[in-house]
């Protein structure tokens, strides 16, 4: 068990380290890289002595632009592991971390609720689809679900805004809460937050519950044919008992693995959803930073989205032994890793 935790923790840290290195490469070495861009911009403005340019670059990116490359790399990595992501290029003196710290809770709220809701709906619909494969419900649901899960989320967002917010005025067009409320633990504020979060959550859920439903359907269908299910049925156990304890629990296992994989997808999708709903989360900040060429903020957003996803993955990994105790025994783990995903799972990922 301890070996399992240590391994997961180590691989999470390595992933973060690699991503930080990758982002250093992008910030410093790629053609048209942000540091060179900022230097050129400052030089063009004129009237700034070279050493002051260096100081400004250092203040924004935390890297001495004319030092040796290895030193720049060490400075960059060291800063990030100390939680220093530099300053925003557009808002002098404002740290990237403080901007992101204000944005991240909104994203986690919307992504978290959406994940929970779509997971729940998907599991129920998928189980029903597999249990009554010849029913009219299953046929209609299969069609609807495969249709919805192949529609890009930004198109759903645009349609929702257009119909429900702009034409029918049922929901707010942007922002996370109404200006008329004061942030804090009071009822009007909480209601306002929920009210503003409904459309973004709906946009995520509409496109993603279908993937869960199809994956769950596949998983339940395989287990329906298993010997232990037949044994349970022939023992005379009621259908409810069989569905819950014999089919449901086992069919959930691959779902939990998918949970981890879909997190990255959801956080990625937040870029579109938050952009269109004017929702001040981290995806919105990322696009904002790209538009205004605020590269230090952009890299910070990217790094923190990645770190958030890595830790969420780690969390699911650590949760997994509770769901499937076999996982801590190496032999069982190998076996699981070697079963290839089905088409339904691929579509979802």
């Amino acid at each position, binding site marked *: 068990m301890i070996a399992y935790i240590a391994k997961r923790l180590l691989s999470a840290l390595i992933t973060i380290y690699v991503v930080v290195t990758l982002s250093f490469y992008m910030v410093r070495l790629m053609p048209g890289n942000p540091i060179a861009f900022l230097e050129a911009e400052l030089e063009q403005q004129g009237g700034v002595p070279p050493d002051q340019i260096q100081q400004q670059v250092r203040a924004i990116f935390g890297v001495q632009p004319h030092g040796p490359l290895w030193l720049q790399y060490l400075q960059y990595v060291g800063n990030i592991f100390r939680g220093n992501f530099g300053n925003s290029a557009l808002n002098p003196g404002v740290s990237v971390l403080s901007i992101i710290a204000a944005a991240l809770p909104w994203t986690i709220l919307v992504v978290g609720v959406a994940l929970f809701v779509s997971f729940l709906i998907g599991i129920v619909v998928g189980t029903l689809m597999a249990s009554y494969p010849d029913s009219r419900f299953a046929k209609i649901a299969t069609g609807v679900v495969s249709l919805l899960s192949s529609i890009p989320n930004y198109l759903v967002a645009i349609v929702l805004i257009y119909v429900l917010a702009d034409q029918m005025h049922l929901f707010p067009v942007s922002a996370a809460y109404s200006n008329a409320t004061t942030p804090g633990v009071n009822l009007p504020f909480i209601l306002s937050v929920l009210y503003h979060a409904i459309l973004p959550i709906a946009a995520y859920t509409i496109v993603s519950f279908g993937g869960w439903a199809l994956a769950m359907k596949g998983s339940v269908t395989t287990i329906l044919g298993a010997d232990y299910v037949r044994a349970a049925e022939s023992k005379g156990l009621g259908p409810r008992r069989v569905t819950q304890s014999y089919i449901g629990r086992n069919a959930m296992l691959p779902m939990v693995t998918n949970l981890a994989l879909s997190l990255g997808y959801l956080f990625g999708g937040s870029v579109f959803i938050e952009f269109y709903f004017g929702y001040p989360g981290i995806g919105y900040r990322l696009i904002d930073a790209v538009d205004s060429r605020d590269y230090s903020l952009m890299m910070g957003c990217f790094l923190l989205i990645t770190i958030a996803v890595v830790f969420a993955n780690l969390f699911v990994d650590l949760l997994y032994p509770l769901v499937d105790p076999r996982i801590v025994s190496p032999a069982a783990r190998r076996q699981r890793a070697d079963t290839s995903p089905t088409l339904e799972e691929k*579509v979802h990922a």
Partner: protein
Amino acid sequence: MELIKDLWRICRSDRSAMIGGAVVLLYVIIAVIGPYVAHVGTQQNPGDAYLGPSLAHPLGTDFIGQDVLTELIVGTRPVIEVGLCSALIVVTVGVIVGLLTGYIGGLIDSLVMRVTDIFLTIPGLPLVIVIASVIHSSSPFVLAVILSVTAWAGLARAVRSQALSLRSADFIDAARVQGLPLRTMIGRQLLPNVGPYVAINFLLAITGAIYAEVGLFILGIAPISGTNWGIMINLGMNQGALYTTKSMLYLFSPMAAIVVLQVSLVFFARALDRLFNPRLRVQ
């Protein structure tokens, strides 16, 4: 030949697969001949802006008086081009990495798989956005490479697990005893066996690439020049299409084009899945 007969039989018995395949074919034809039959002019005719549907303009006109249907047709090629190109890269890298690591095994396998896992964890879209905004290239090939940057990892893992199970098969043993070189082992022995799986993933990779590509144009991160569906939506939104009903057709036509293509690709992939996976056919 047998395969095509089978595919035809499955398509005939499954209407959604048939429609999916036909629609995909139609899009490919439009992408190939589109630029020859339709031209998007450069002159602006503000007097013709936001016309409703008519015989001359079946889908109306946009904010500078261009015919929306023409733009839609011309915009097909860039989208499909990048989608195909990116899917090719994804499949090539994914299959090579997957087969090599799965077949060779050992230290190389565990090292490469660690790297693959890292790419699996990194959220693809933010990375693509960051790279695209730094590079800022309008070349379709560069765009396709950027879109493939994390997408290969999932396929590589899946192909590897197939290669792992094939490795102990009798025919692989037989081939190994003959002393065939690695190139032949991978290319002639393993590859044909994962072919079907790869074909399906090729279609899915196209949908993934189109999703991200159009997204980049909609957000305005990829350079806005020329005509494609993402640029149409981007311009439509920037012209305030959300706040007026008169540009509804201009905004919703490219969206419909994307949805129809994506859904058809997935439905067609399902038909392929049934073709290659007899177990599913019995179900």
